[in-house]
């Protein structure tokens, strides 16, 4: 199959600007995008740089943006992605590029993985033999651990794009592995850690990570499960972001009180009634919102019909949680 490869090229050594180069490759129908890149490097241009190790979707080394979608180059057949005879290959987004298709994962991924302290500390008392654990408890841990650390969920993440400090879905999937491992003795410490700023509460529920994981590991859902577990354990915020707990309390109290969310009050209560600096930061938003009719004045929050029924539902739910 004849295919045109449009490949992102950038070589800081020769001082040139990033650009795309075009190559023709001819490979069997079973060939992968990685086979194409290798043919280019081996037979046409030995200066092309890209990473690849296992060549079978086990190691995550070859994450690339192929025809505008994050993929593992070694596991994607050209025939499955080619559009009008062309395959475009770029580094993943939102990450410093070192050379051509090689990028720097240190700050983007590895540091963040380490920051959630995803190692198991054996729960006391340590048994003499293996821990006796139900298979169902380990099955999901095992699945989360099959993550190949490709970083593609992070490259798709809507928050990381604008906030590099968000630890992101890959690190939080790694946290999931530790949080739900029944053999771990640092359960609550880790939950507090991932509830700090930059952790689980910075997710905006865009669900992009789920769509980007080539293994179908549903990193967004795992992040939610970590958060739900933190709430179950009474850990509603880290030690450094009490705002999360205030937001949570205000949200709940509002819906309990009026049957729906009092957004004005939520904003104020989340910042904290005594937090003058935080409250002052809200002002420009309010001022901008007024002419657009998004902040009706005078502000008045009505109780909605059926509020009592909603309160009873919440009460019941809270009782059943206890």
């Amino acid at each position: 199959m004849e295919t045109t490869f449009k490949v992102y090229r950038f070589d800081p050594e020769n001082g040139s600007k990033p650009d795309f180069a075009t190559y023709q490759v001819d490979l069997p129908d079973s060939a992968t995008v990685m086979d194409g890149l290798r043919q280019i490097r081996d037979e046409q241009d030995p200066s092309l740089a890209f990473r690849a190790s296992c060549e079978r979707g086990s190691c995550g080394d070859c994450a690339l943006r192929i025809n505008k979608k994050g993929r593992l180059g070694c596991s994607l057949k050209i025939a499955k992605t080619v559009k009008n005879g062309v395959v475009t290959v770029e580094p993943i987004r939102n990450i410093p590029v070192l050379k051509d298709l090689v990028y720097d994962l240190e700050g983007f991924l590895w540091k963040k993985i380490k920051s959630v302290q995803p190692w198991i500390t054996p729960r006391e008392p340590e048994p003499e033999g293996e821990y006796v654990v139900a298979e169902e408890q380990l099955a999901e841990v095992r699945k989360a651990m099959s993550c190949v650390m490709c970083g593609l969920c992070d490259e798709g993440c809507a928050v990381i794009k604008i906030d590099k400090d968000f630890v992101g879905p890959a690190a939080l999937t790694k946290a999931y592995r530790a949080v739900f491992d029944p053999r771990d003795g640092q359960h609550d410490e880790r939950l507090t850690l991932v509830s700090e700023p930059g952790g689980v509460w910075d997710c905006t529920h865009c669900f992009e990570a789920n769509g980007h994981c080539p293994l179908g590991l549903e990193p967004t859902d795992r992040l939610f499960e970590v958060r739900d577990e933190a709430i179950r354990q009474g850990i509603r915020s880290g030690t450094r972001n009490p705002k999360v707990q205030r937001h949570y309390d205000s949200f709940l109290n509002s819906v309990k009180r009026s049957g729906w969310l009092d957004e004005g009050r939520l904003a104020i209560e989340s910042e904290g009634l005594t937090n003058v600096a935080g409250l002052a930061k809200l002002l420009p938003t309010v001022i901008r919102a007024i002419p657009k009719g998004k902040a009706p004045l005078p502000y008045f929050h009505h109780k909605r019909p059926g509020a009592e029924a909603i309160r009873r539902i919440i009460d019941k739910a809270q009782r059943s949680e206890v």
Partner: protein
Amino acid sequence: MPKYDVLIVGGGVAGLQAALAAKYAGVQVALLSKTHPLRSHSATSSDGLNAAFGGDDSWQQHAQDTIRAGAGLCDHAAVEEMCRAASDDIIRLDHIGVPFNRNAEGKLDRWTLGGHTSSRTVFSADMTGHAVLNTLHEQCMREDIPSHEEWLATSLVVEDGCCRGVLALEIGTGNLEAFSASAVVLATGGAGRVYTPSTASQSCCGDGMSLAYRAGLGLRDMEMVQYHPLGFCERAAFASEGALGEGAVLCNSDGQPILQTDDLPLRDALCRSLASAENGATLDFRSIGKERIGARFLYLERAANDMAGVSLDSAPLPVMPRMHRVLGGIQTDTNGATAVSGLFAAGECASPGVHGANALTGNALTASVVFGRRAGSAAAAHASNSSPQAIADSALPDTRRTLEAIFSRPTAGDTVVTIQRALANTMAEHVGLVRDEAGLQEAARCVADLQARYTQVGLRHHGKMYNHELLTFYELGALLDVAGAIVTAAQERQESRGVHHRSDFPTANEAEEPYHSLVTCGPDGPSLATSPVNAGQSG
């Protein structure tokens, strides 16, 4: 110059085990690896780990099975050491978080694999290597072990018979650096890329074997090259042999079963019968059912879909034998110690003598876990009794000059890639599952010829950053050393034993005591010696 008590070269399962053991022993340890540790070939290991966990099994029984498979070439003391220690090491892995599959009682579930007389292979779906690697990497993060990633060790520094450290090239920048250490552990993995097709990752180039060989050490039992029966037809991927234990059926092209699953043969017998099957073979999972496939074959289900276009619950997967690994390696004792003081080796690059002429499925990862730990501890003990010596100032400039000389070679038609392909094809054609004198002679001639071309070959790309051609140049040097050792040992062994099958000598030579082959680097190329097999009990 970075200075450590212990430097571990290689970040796979053996290297990470060694690093942790050295750290626990209280010395300053660092990792140096040419890929990020999580990109190591260990991540693809799918079959599991072996140990006897009581009941009707015992470590002695595991040892007996291992020795039987090894066809007379196992070092008994090493086998006993591994089989005795394996259960504790596996329990430790369980405690630090490897998600091993559980049985109905919540205890370690086990597969029965070919050549084992008992169910003793614990597994984490078909991603055991991946799970162990990730778990060990977590613990290395916890211990804050410094890790030099994307650094290629290019030579060992050996002075007065003692290893002083390594010289290494930073792949991202092209910088050369000397790493001084009181003890070095080579854990650089296998050499699968010396063949094509193989199941090897890109990094499996026998680097550590070659480093040791060039430092004067012997490579043992290199002619023992194992094939994996369940390779994909077009990809390096393979199905776990656990599939056969789970009830997947191996069939010929007419869909007729070619194997009784209650009596699984050793890999080599299976490979030879598959290789002779006309029109190929398939592995049929359909009787296992979608749910169980999903639970037990996390990796294969996805890989079969992505890379073979097969949905396991609805169609059989075409399979074929692929070269899997060299069972031999750097000769070590059961502490990973080599004949060079301060130099240790463990994992697939090493030969402590447990595999002999044929390895039981699961014993390779087990050996990496057990002997990786032991090598790390022994290296730490060695380092505690000595202090790192500075590496001679001349070492780096010498290597720099060599590198410049390579860059200044003219670039004619030959490239490192063409030489590497020719080498891998030669090895597959003449030194494969079945060998004979004529083929081996041809292979020896080809390897010598490729060696000669290698000394002349120039590089087309002269950049410093991520210069893959330069990386391949180094890797090819190692592959040629390994190929030379394999061919030399295979020519000398005029018998069939274990995985070494000679059509011109179809049986084992029972008239002589079994012996190990030992290839060293002589002035005129590989030089062969033999050594007796230690078949005695350990103390």
